[in-house]
């Protein structure tokens, strides 16, 4: 992702006087984000690097992101960078690699456990806008885990959607897909 190596990222994150970017959310939140973390947001990365802008102190407004979401995004991306660094440091040592992996899985499980279905969807929209590939994949997998092997009613409720089939379509679908869900009928 960044041109610098992972080690430089680690240094950058741990230095007290690291470069930061100021981000403003649409509901008035202001965040000082470490540069390495901010560069995970490809929308910002291309803003600075591809268009050759000078990295100065002006703050950036994020029109589609709210405070709560941005703070969660920053939390995840910061930890993800840390894990990446630990993983690189542990390369070659199977036990250490396994420990880093387990630690990461534990963090991710806890992170997603605390998210309501609403929050999960809001986060996906935010992360999609900011273009953070790794986190988007993680959130998508989490949604898939939540709707796997669930009833039709549950999936409808999760995405807050209405049954817009005609009665004939409804019949046909029942015939085709009844094997996949038994017992819990449409409301």
């Amino acid at each position, binding site marked *: 992702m960044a041109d610098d190596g992972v080690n430089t990222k680690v240094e950058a994150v741990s230095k007290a006087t690291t470069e930061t970017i100021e981000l403003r959310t649409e509901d008035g939140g202001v965040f000082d984000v470490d540069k390495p973390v901010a560069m995970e947001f490809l929308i910002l990365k291309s803003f600075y690097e591809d268009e050759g802008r000078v990295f100065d102190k002006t703050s950036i407004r994020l029109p589609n992101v709210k405070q709560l979401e941005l703070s969660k995004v920053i939390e995840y991306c910061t930890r993800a960078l840390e894990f990446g660094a630990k993983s690189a440091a542990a390369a070659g040592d199977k036990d250490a690699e396994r420990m880093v992996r387990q630690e990461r899985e534990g963090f991710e499980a806890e992170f997603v456990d605390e998210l309501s279905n609403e929050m999960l969807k809001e986060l996906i929209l935010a992360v999609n806008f900011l273009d953070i590939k790794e986190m988007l994949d993680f959130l*998508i997998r989490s*949604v898939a885990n939540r709707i*796997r092997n669930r009833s039709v009613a549950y999936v409808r409720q999760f995405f807050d959607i*209405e049954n817009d089939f005609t009665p004939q379509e409804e019949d046909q679908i029942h015939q085709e897909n009844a094997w996949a869900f038994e017992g819990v009928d449409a409301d």
Partner: protein
Amino acid sequence: MATGETRAKSLDLLPPAILATIMTKLDVGSICCAASTCTAFRTCASQILSFLPTFHLVDIAPSIDLLRPLLQPSNPYLRSLKVDCDRLNDSAIELLLRPPLHELCLHNCTDFSGKLLSEIGRRCRDLRSLCLGSMSEYRVQAIDISDLKELLHGCTQLEALNLMFDVSLFLHHNSAQVWALASEKLTTLEIGYIPSETVTEMLNPMLGPHELPNHIQPSILSSIQKLGLSVDYITDAMVSIISQGLVSLTHLDLRDSPLTEPEVALDLTNAGLQQLNRYGKLKHLSLVRRQEFIVTYFRRVNDVGVLFMADKCADMESICLGGFCRVTDTGFKTILHSCSRLYKLRVSQGTQLTDLVFHDITATSLTLTHVSLIFCNLLTNHAVMNLVFNKDIRVLDLRNCKNLGDEALRAISTLSQLKTLLLDGSDISDVGLSYLRWGVIGSLVRLSIRRCKRLTDKCISALFDGSCNMELRELDLSNVPNLSDNGILLLAKSRVPFSELRMRCCPLIGDTAVMALASMQVDEGIWHGSSLRLLDLCDCGGITQLAFHWLKKPYFPRLRWLGVRGSVNRDLVDALARNRPYLHVECHGEELEAD
């Protein structure tokens, strides 16, 4: 991209690309479920099905009509296909066999002919891995050796071949020339049943009577690293030829089920055991004599053979010995002390195995993760207390060790990584099981207390009091005579989302238990009904036609396998089958297996 203020949390705002990506992470059943929610999802789902790389449908047996709309013919990305073919036959060949496939796994192919094999060879030339189950099971459909030849000839990229059925009907003489056609890339070979004589002949063509003296044969199947065979008799000759011919062998798994007591020429002896691991690459070894037809053991192998074997097997990681009744503590102990990398140990019918084997296990640097000691009747709690010094044990199978009791459970409760615990037929009580509550119950996924006759409903209340987050999904409470409906009520109240529950031969279990399970609430009350996929009520004393009412839809929405018998009306079962066409109902008392 969505803009500002009115951000109602509706589907419209999740970009279709993201919806599609979410769906690609789902199994076929969940995709079809999602497709049934609204028109947008339905469109999305049908698009997904046209480029889905993995199609696995094994928990129901689809008919060809159900399968056709799901397996889009124009899907060039289909790489992995797994289907239960119980309701399919040769007419499904065109639908199933696709050129881009790399992995193909078809279970229950009883109604297919040998054409399946030859067509795979013709159509699926990029195949890397093939697994076929239960072909020619009723000997109705004929398979010819030419079908296998076509398969091996056509699939030049094949790396793993698994023929889980009896190949002896079409594979007899001159089988060597067939296997010579196998690609050099073939590294894994597993066969459901093959006579050992055929194995011996197929690996050493020089023994064939029709070979010309100056006809040089390349060594057959020399690239094989993993070999798994079920034979009639494991013999010295077969073991010798395998060890000699397969120079890259890392995994060897041999099982036999003798019909009669083996003669010395048709048996494994110390000499045969010494031949193993000739090239020093063997990491996994499994030699098991099953008592399927008669009670029999490897009577011609004793400590001497095992000592010689252990000497050459210092790098072994997994050892499984079944039926070695003449091997004593000396032999087993030598294995533990010679194989420092051992993580999997399985001994079955270890009639002379005692606690002494594990007495100084702390002196070794072993990190065992899978331990199975089945039918080892001399083992006592002391053995378990020493075993648990291996803190990483994930699977502990102590079935039919009748002298194990509560102290063993106290020791087991310290294993924080334990996922599977099987205690069938042990002498444990409710108190013993309650020890599990303080530790291991949080990590356990599968628990079996079958035939633990001293247990009562109290053990359920001790373990399942709803206070800790449980990973437990598979529970076997069969043959526990004092288990009653009250125990099952407690189980249901605990809201643990079990996927498999077996309660065979429990005379006090009846309709109330079924009702309790049917009323389990999951998903915060949105969805009523338990999460059970497998329920075995075979020979439960109190099951009447009332229970059948609760087995119908909409109860037990995820149920795929059901076992019932005893005083059950054939009509009731038929009515249930009509109500739930995709439910496997077993009425003859056979054990249920979820795929």
